[in-house]
């Protein structure tokens, strides 16, 4: 490491990163657990033959996970660039 980042910049960068982490884990928890706790209710809704509760576990949550990771990668990169700590 050539130059050392001022502590307050590193602190602010990490605060934003930590925030993003909690938001990501929140989305993850909703689509991993909470939404499937409502499966019986959701199964009352049927779209194109799919009961919604079944669909969420078989496909819906998976799509959210994939999109979520790309969104996270993009957001984190923005944060890194904002504080000038992204790779060159």
């Amino acid at each position: 490491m050539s130059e050392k980042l001022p502590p307050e910049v590193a602190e602010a960068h990490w605060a934003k990163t930590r925030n993003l982490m909690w938001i990501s884990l929140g989305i993850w928890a909703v689509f991993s657990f909470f939404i499937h706790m409502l499966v019986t209710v959701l199964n009352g809704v049927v779209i194109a033959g799919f009961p919604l509760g079944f669909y969420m576990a078989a496909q819906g949550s998976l799509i959210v996970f994939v999109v979520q990771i790309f969104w996270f990668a993009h957001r984190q990169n923005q944060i890194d660039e904002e504080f000038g700590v992204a790779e060159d």
Partner: protein
Amino acid sequence: MSLSMKGDFTDNLGKIYGIYVGGFAAFVLLMALASMVGVPDRWILWAYMAATIGIYAFIGIMSRTAQVSEYYVAGRSVPAVYNGMATGADWMSGASFVGMAGTLFVLGYDGLAFVLGWTGGYVLVAVLLAPYLRKFGAYTVPDFLGTRYGGNAARLVGIIVLFACSFTYITAQVYASGIIASQFLGIDFGIAVFAGLAGILVCSMLGGMKAVTWTQVAQYIVLIVAYLLPAVWMSTVQTGVPLPQLMYGGALTQIAEYERILNVARTHVAPFQTYSPRDFFFLIFCLMVGTASLPHILMRFFTTPTVREARKSVGWSLFFIFLLYFTAPAYAAFSKFNLMGLFVNAEGYRLAFTAIPAWMLEWGSIAGHQLVTICGVKAESVMAIQAACEARGHVGGFPYSELRLNNDMIVLSTPSIAGMPIWVVGLVGAGGFAAALSTADGLLLAIANALSHDVYYKMIDPKADTKRRLLVAKILLVIVAIAAALLARTQPSDILSMVAWAFSIAAAGLFAPLVMGVWWKRTTNMGAILGMAAGFGVTMFYLVGNVYGMDLVPRSGDEISWFGVAAISSGIFGVPVAFIVTIVVSLVTPPPSPEMQDFVDRLRLPKGGNMMVQTH
């Protein structure tokens, strides 16, 4: 091949894999033509095995290397998309390929715990671990633990956990590859295991991570085509639209209708008929956290050129895994619809003994397995089935409720059940074989690299030169592979059921120290070491105690059970214990040195290149 490999290999990736995909498609077409002109089935199956192993060996030999960083982390030059494909192949084991759709077929909604559990963990990998481990620049997971937590004690505990979760897993992969090879080549299982072993070694021995990466990409392409083709086929035949993932809603509606007609009590889409809601969510939790802790998966993200690419690469990994996992429920629904249709269309909803399809008898009569059971007997001959069914009062035919299919046969048998030609059957076999080989390669490297890099180089002989280190790495790799093959050859049923445990073991032993090492600066060496040991210890204690009891004999009455939690979810105890012990011990021990705190600060910033400068 006129292709110049001299230029930068990674610059030509698109071209190389483009040619590969074209060649593979041409080969499949050739097989289709061959089956039409009457080439014997057996030859076609052999051709699939020979051609795929041949191409893996070719890639393996082309990627041989004498450089340490290429051997351990593929020279950190794997672009995000390709690393995604390699991770997909690394991740999807023989069991995923062969058993996932079958599990969904049998369990219906409750089986989706596996679909969710084996995908959602990648969110944890992307957010909590991959970018930081990549920034650190280690060669192995224990390498990170050893550096962050002050030396060989942490390193050693990490190696023990790694070995405990990876070795049973690799044995099961070698076993799966042996089963597939013996079925498709018609050779004895004991010999087929060594065919699998050879397939694994040609990919990994000469080129380590570099060779494994590029063969895994090739294997991913084979396995995903082999998985999607039959599902697309069934969807096109039944609905006219070649998009099984969107069209199986219709099949689900039909299945519900058939369930009413056939009086099936366990409906396909209703939740919590096998698992209680608590078991269902515990299982999802353990599989997800386990995913984020398995060393053979984490080390794939050491191979990207940058931290940024490591994050994106997790997204691509999950995308490529998603392609298979969101197809599996469609596969299951179409297969189930086909099968139930046989009974619904039969007179009195009983399948006449004279109308038993040939595939039931073919798969039913495979020695040593109970793949098809009718009226409680192995489906070997019409006479045996008829006798058993008549004893149960079913005259003339048997109802749907008397048919039992083993989970593991659904994918491999679906092409023949749905009447697809032999070239599709061979393709599916090659796909299953690719899935087992690619996972075995990843696991083999994870184990052998921990032994050669962490135990030999870091703990025994830190002065060893490059040549010697690589030699030791390659020898250990062969030894571990042969040990796994010898163990697989004994067909150890216990080992196979232990695979599901790997997730709980990894989650309990490794998740807390890895996450806390990055996210909580205050984590001390003693805290992490005791946390790892406690999490791992509690989970192992519960696993062994729950399955075998203290006398180590299963079902002898002394098995323990805490709140009725299943062995497969035992990580539910270990993970919180590991976190609590880590935090409490860290708080009562002096904080880490300023140098270590500074180290963690640098870990958190992508800028500045690898932290760990590896000596060559």
